[in-house]
């Protein structure tokens, strides 16, 4: 009896409640539609320019890369010590996404809405950047000097008008290395160890375009990016068993070091060719060093390895840019680790180019303004790089030139034929040609000059 009565009385009040709540809902919905934002440029004030950056500072993907933001900030602090850009100090806000795309979206939202950055600079991580690039472009936020060689970001400026690269693409570099292999190592049995993400696959693609092909499971060994810590014994054994004389490495630096360690274990000493992103002497020696292989020995293991680069080798102590950047790094880098290596050099260089772009865009700094300036004036944005930026209305690829080098016995990458020749190509099927480029000298105060 009680149950029935309770149920019946329940039937009247909910109906009224539903009506009340629905009205409230409609009202709330109307309330939440806010007017459009104001027209002032976010991130720019009379005294400050705020820049944002996303990268894996912690987690399995972070080693090495987590130095880039500190290096960039070091350069910006130097610029600020000299008065900034048109009196504005540059502030870099870097957020850690631990290489998880879900967190990249959240931290991008924080940078855009909380820190109100003027532009994104130097973001690291291809998959993670894919998750935010569309939104960044849609809001018209400059997405400058992205640290990824994934050509998909740069080859269609209609799709991503605000995104510009900071690295040559993996495809272009692989094509250039492929040409070298075809011309100089045609008699050797060539194999490859690559990680099965876009980095590794683009490397294979570029090599194939250049005419260097592989047979899966025989001359091509793979591993899942991020798992190299578990050892690459199986892969190196496979390559050894198939009599591969030349091993191309399409993987990151820690994987290269691990591979050499695994190969060394079984007495396998092929000729290595490493894509620039994976060839960093300092990382190589550190990882092998703590396995009990002394620096003198690991330097010997590295010697003779062929690689490519768009910039001077961090070990080229006489290069004027390297000298200047090293000094700034020593004086201004406040990061937990500031050991000079490729990552620090790249970070400093991006800082340099960003400053040049900010200067060139003028005192009246707007988002559209800087994008237009960069797209139309790539040659004015010279830097430590030994090839110019390749920006135009049809492509936002960065350095389209690479020189090929060989590591000497002191872990310095030296030009492979004595004199340095820079090669250039596109990320499609175009040919590889030589590039004649004279890098403008660095100013005495190590600051970029406008015009």
């Amino acid at each position, binding site marked *: 009896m009680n*149950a*029935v009565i309770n*149920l019946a009385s*329940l*039937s009247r009040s*909910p109906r009224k*409640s*539903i009506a009340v*709540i*629905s009205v*409230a*809902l409609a009202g*709330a*919905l*109307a*309330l*939440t*539609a*806010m007017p*459009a*934002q104001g027209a002032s440029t976010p991130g720019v004030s009379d005294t400050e320019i705020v820049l944002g950056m996303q990268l894996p*500072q*912690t987690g399995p993907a972070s080693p090495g890369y987590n130095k880039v933001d500190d290096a960039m900030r070091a350069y910006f602090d130097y610029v600020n010590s000299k008065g900034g850009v048109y009196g504005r100090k540059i502030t870099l806000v*870097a957020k*850690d996404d631990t*290489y*998880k*795309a*879900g967190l*990249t*979206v*959240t931290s991008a*939202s*924080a940078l*855009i*809405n*909380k820190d109100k950055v003027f532009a994104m600079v130097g973001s690291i991580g*291809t*998959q*993670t950047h*894919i*998750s*935010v690039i*569309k*939104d960044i472009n*849609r*809001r018209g936020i400059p997405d400058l000097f992205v640290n990824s060689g994934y050509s*998909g970001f740069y080859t269609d400026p209609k799709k991503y008008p605000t995104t510009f690269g900071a690295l040559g693409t993996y495809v272009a570099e692989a094509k250039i290395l492929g040409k070298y292999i075809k011309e100089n190592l045609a008699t050797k049995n060539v194999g490859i160890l690559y990680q*099965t*993400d*876009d980095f590794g*696959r683009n490397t294979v693609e570029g090599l194939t375009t250049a005419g260097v092909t592989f047979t899966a499971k025989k001359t091509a060994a793979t591993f*899942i*990016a991020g798992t190299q810590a578990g050892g690459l014994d199986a892969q190196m054994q496979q390559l050894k068993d198939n009599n591969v004389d030349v091993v191309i490495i399409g993987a990151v630096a820690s994987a290269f070091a691990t591979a050499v360690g695994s190969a060394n274990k079984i007495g396998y000493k092929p000729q290595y060719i490493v894509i620039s992103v994976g060839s960093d002497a300092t990382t190589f020696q550190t990882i092998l060093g703590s396995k009990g292989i002394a620096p003198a020995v690991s330097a010997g293991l590295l010697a003779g390895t062929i690689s490519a680069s768009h910039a001077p080798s961090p070990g080229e102590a006489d290069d004027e840019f390297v000298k200047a950047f090293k000094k700034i790094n020593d004086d201004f880098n406040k*990061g*937990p680790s500031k050991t000079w290596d490729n990552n620090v050099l790249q970070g400093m260089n991006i800082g340099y180019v960003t400053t040049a772009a900010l200067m060139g865009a003028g005192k009246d700094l707007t988002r559209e303004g800087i994008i237009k300036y960069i797209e139309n004036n790539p040659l004015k944005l010279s830097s430590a790089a030994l090839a110019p930026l390749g920006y135009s209305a049809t492509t936002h690829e960065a350095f389209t030139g690479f020189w090929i080098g060989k590591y000497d016995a002191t872990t310095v990458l030296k030009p492979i034929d004595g004199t340095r020749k820079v090669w250039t190509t596109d990320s499609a099927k175009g040919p590889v040609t030589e590039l004649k480029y004279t890098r403008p000298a660095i100013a005495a105060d190590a600051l970029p000059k406008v015009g």
Partner: protein
Amino acid sequence: MRAVSNLKRKSIARTSLIRTLIFAALVLLVGAQFDAYNQAQLAVVLILFIGVLSITLLTGISGQLSLGQGALMAVGGYSTALLITNYTLSLWVAIPLSVISSAIAGLLLGVAAARLRGPYLAGTTLVIALAIPTIANRFMSVFKGDEGLQVDVGYPPQWFSSLFGEPTYEQWQLYVALPFAGVALFFASNILLSRTGRMWRSIRDNESAASLAGVNFSRQKIYVFVISSTFAGLSGALYGLRGLVGPSVYPVSLSLLLLTAAVLGGIRSITGAFIGTVIVVFLPDWIELILGNFGLSEQVSNFLPALISSLLLILTVVINPAGVAGARLHKHK
């Protein structure tokens, strides 16, 4: 008897509906006060709330500990993304459709897991959660490997903008997440109040007694997995629509995040699920607010939120396993 149970079912539905409407109204009212960043965060809360509900149902109500909800989220995410990308369906069609594949995944998982208990179930689901990225990489032509599938919530339809004005992107994210969260809340509330809920609780509390009472708990256990998986899949679909469906979007830490939220807030109630989700989503922001003035090194500040939430988890489990909402265990047990 039939008349009474029909009335009961209708009143359960009505109660759930009221709860859902109040919930929606509150979210909108609060959301209106938020700035853009917090509106986006609120949308994340709604999205993960659905995922946490999947744990409330699976673990809180029926007592089965699964560490693989992230994998089920991935199933929902990939299904939706594939439907949107390959068949140009709108998300309003793709998401409900992808619920089907989540249910199937739940069915498979349930069949495999029904015989497992405790740590065996936990460990097995953990292995499954780890296997997901490799599947995406294995069948690259379909799942696009590391690149993943780029999807987002798109733009509001014309009629919406004319009626309510053009919303910002963050507001639109909120408006997309809300109806789905509401639906999830409605069904969860229904289940908890109904006879099904009671059956599941009996499985959790005392399996031998339950089987004596005639509960076919093998079948019910599978059923729980199916239902719980649809919640997880829905959450995963919405989570992917924030920008990308890819292997790094559904890591193992996501499964653990949902579990942490469920335990902190109160693993047995819907309110607990919501409270817990709010905590885990906003915790990094709160920490930054409090400690931002201390000038902590990057090294410390990057790991602090994880440390604090792990410690909170341990403390909750040791001191007050019922979580924040569990203190007042009333209607639902």
